[in-house]
């Protein structure tokens, strides 16, 4: 079976490679220059409202409620405000803005600011564990415009208890003075952003509960969502990539169908890989990597040159099962290594073989190594990007010029583009070829060999003369 990769001229191959690089660069540029950062965080400080004693559970809006500036004011208030009357209210987004369905999700966290008071300090439990904070949270929503505009509607109410971890920082000038640094407490997440405005009410029960948490001055609230612009760019990319990949798949399928034989397992695996990639998205990323690994197991297996024909998924159940099990990286490492050594061992033996066998092996080795190098490159880049995006805080350093490139977005679109380009160039290059093998003058062949010799560790002498023959005999030998 000759594949397109083997029958393509060097010039066409180079042009194809350049096209791929250009597509890849486009993906990065779209992410880096057009898309905003993937997510945005907005900090809020809760407004303090005083609930009416007759309507203690009402939803309070900071704009209309009976508001006080600080907890301190509550202590000196002539109305004798009780702790259970205090409601921390947070409205997101800020006034004048509204949420959008493009935001996809909202994740929030809260952090308490505690004041140092020698009489009522934050104290840990007897066993050294942090005291627990109990609070009753209500999430409400409203739409302010359009036919379905309405006032605040309660969405969820929940009584929660979370450990409150704080650390006391002593003042440098006075040992009796200082302040607390408290850790963020994950609050809630919403999986879709359906409404325009949201309101959070937090009430802290007193008397029996919350008597070890010290004196609260503020509740800080952070709201994180996916940027609308990022969602739009992401969707656009997928909308463009999906039809292209489906077209390529159809082309591949037809090509295989035209052959006067049943499709090989390798072809089936390649087709599956293409299908999974075409429908890959954020959530199914794991599926993609799993399929990629399975494809690799089959690809590597089919290129084991010293064993009988397989072409049967059953011979790979172990590997595929193991992949499904999750030992992905170990397995691929093990297999790559084993197959690689097997192939290199064979290459050393090539000069002693018959010419026809020699050329068959060389074809296999070339195909295998080409793909191995590209895959390792792509996988390596994915790992590198992943590390960069995890440690990338450069844009968070003050005093530096604001970057005009959104690195994290560029990495997202870039990796997405890279795997798509990878898979579909595989589908194209490893599609069965109907073209006649190359029989041109030797100059092209020389170039072609130069390219090959870069991936091959050893190039034996006299290959130039053999290569034309290889094309013929290799093909006939396989046929």
């Amino acid at each position, binding site marked *: 079976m000759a594949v397109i990769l083997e029958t393509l001229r060097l010039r066409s191959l180079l042009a194809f490679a350049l096209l791929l690089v250009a597509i890849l660069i486009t993906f990065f540029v779209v992410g880096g220059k057009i898309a905003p*950062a*993937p*997510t*945005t*965080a*907005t*900090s*809020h*400080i809760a*407004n303090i409202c005083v609930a009416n004693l007759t309507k203690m559970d009402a939803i309070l809006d900071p704009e209309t409620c009976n508001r006080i500036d600080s*907890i301190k004011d*509550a*202590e000196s208030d002539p109305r004798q*405000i*009780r*702790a259970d009357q*205090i409601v921390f209210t947070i409205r997101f*987004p*800020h*006034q*004048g*803005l509204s949420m*959008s369905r*493009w935001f996809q999700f909202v*994740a929030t*966290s809260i*952090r308490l*600011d505690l004041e140092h008071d020698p*009489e*009522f300090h934050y104290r840990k439990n007897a066993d050294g564990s942090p005291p627990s904070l109990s609070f009753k949270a209500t999430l409400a929503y409203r739409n302010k415009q359009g036919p379905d505009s309405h006032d605040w509607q309660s969405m969820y109410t929940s009584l929660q208890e979370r450990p409150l971890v704080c650390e006391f920082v002593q*003042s*440098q*000038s006075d040992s009796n003075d*200082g*302040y607390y640094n408290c850790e*963020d407490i994950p609050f809630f997440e919403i999986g879709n952003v359906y409404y325009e405005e949201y309101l959070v009410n937090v009430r*802290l029960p*007193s*008397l029996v509960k*919350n*008597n070890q*948490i*010290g*004196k*609260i001055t503020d509740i*800080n609230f*952070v709201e*994180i969502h996916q*940027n*609308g*612009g990022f969602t*739009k760019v992401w969707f656009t990319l997928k909308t463009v990539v999906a039809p292209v990949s489906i077209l390529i798949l159809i082309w591949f399928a037809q090509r295989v169908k035209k052959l006067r034989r049943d499709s090989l397992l390798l072809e089936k695996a390649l087709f599956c890989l293409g299908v999974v990639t075409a429908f890959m998205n954020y959530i199914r*990323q794991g599926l993609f990597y799993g399929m990629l690994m399975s494809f690799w197991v089959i690809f590597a297996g089919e290129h084991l040159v010293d064993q009988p024909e397989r072409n049967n998924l059953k011979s790979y159940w172990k590997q595929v099962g193991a992949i499904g099990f999750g030992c992905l990286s170990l397995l691929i490492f093990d297999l790559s290594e084993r197959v690689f050594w097997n192939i290199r061992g064979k290459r050393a033996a090539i000069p002693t073989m018959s010419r026809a066998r020699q050329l068959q092996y060389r074809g296999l080795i070339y195909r295998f190594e080409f793909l191995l190098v590209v895959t390792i490159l792509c996988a390596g880049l994915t790992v590198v990007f992943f590390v960069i*995006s*995890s440690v*990338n*805080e450069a844009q*968070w350093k*003050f005093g530096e010029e604001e970057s005009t490139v959104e690195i*994290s977005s560029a990495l997202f679109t870039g990796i997405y583009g890279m795997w798509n380009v990878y898979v579909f160039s595989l589908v194209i290059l490893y599609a069965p070829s109907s073209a006649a093998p190359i029989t041109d003058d030797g100059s092209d062949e020389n170039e072609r060999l130069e390219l090959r010799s870069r991936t091959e560790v050893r190039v034996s002498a006299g290959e130039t003369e053999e290569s034309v023959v290889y094309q013929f005999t290799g093909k006939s030998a396989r046929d």
Partner: protein
Amino acid sequence: MTFCTCRFTYFSLWQLQVINIVYCFNRSIALSGSSNNFISKGSCDLVGKQLNHRQLQFCRRNIDVMNSVKNGASLAVSECQHQFRHRRWNCTTVQFERSPVFGNSANGGTREAAFVHSISSAGVAYAVTRSCSEGNLGRKCGCDSKYNGRSEKGWKWAGCSDDIDFGIGFSKTFVDARERGRKSGSPTRVEMNLHNNNAGRMVVKKFMKLQCKCHGVSGSCNVKTCWRSLPNFRKVGEHIKEKFDGATEVELRLIGSRRVLVPRNEYFKPHTVYDLVYIDHSPNFCNADSDTGSLGTRGRVCNRTSQAIDGCELMCCGRGYITRQEVHVERCSCKFHWCCYVRCQNCRKRVEVSACK
């Protein structure tokens, strides 16, 4: 903290615009009996005498932010008093009727003036940022199209920028307008004030806490979102106090065509943007002296057992002190909930109090 009379802060504070606003504004309010807030452009005119032309314009244009400026000034004053509570100069504010008590002599280039400028500028930046996070300024702040070209549409596309940038920008425009709008006055002083104003703001920025959260499949760090939150203002105050202790004495020199502040002692390390600079030596603050703007330490409470600056020896400048017995009523055995409801008993406590002669 409430201020009902128009007061001027002791020493060089009288020249410091933002603080003037707090005190004088509150007086105007107390007189007129209206609510304690900037509510209309008229409020700017009420304090207009304390503002120069640029600031007045700015006040009218940003009336909604002026309450935060006022809060920032109060924050700065109380932090200043906290940091200097044990020193001869304790950042007191003094009563004043018609004109600044301490004339031009207090228009100082001393370390204390440097501190006051720095902390006030920091206080305004802090309070404005805080107000942004509280949502009191609506779409201003990070989403203000005047500041970063982002509108409602921009918010939906890419979110808003950090509130701290707005807070710092506002503090810069408003507080520095005082210096920039000066028609007379020594250029060295102007440079010094601008430098110290900026140093204060930089400290707020430097201490903003960077926090990050990872999201992704089962908590993996697929996407990392970071944000900044305000530090405790005490931390800012403490840092500026440290800078006060290590402030650099400078002079204005012409380097090329630019006037630059350089350390007077050439062997000293040049100051950074975070450091405070001063041009005049401070008086010893022992005796009241209207020329130096010192109130003196007569009557100040001191610590009899301490050898440090809060000890009676140093505080009273060797004039001696009087110790008397006093009975203090204090809260004790309080029953406390996290807020508000404090039930205490009153305990009488006999204490010894020393005060300077």
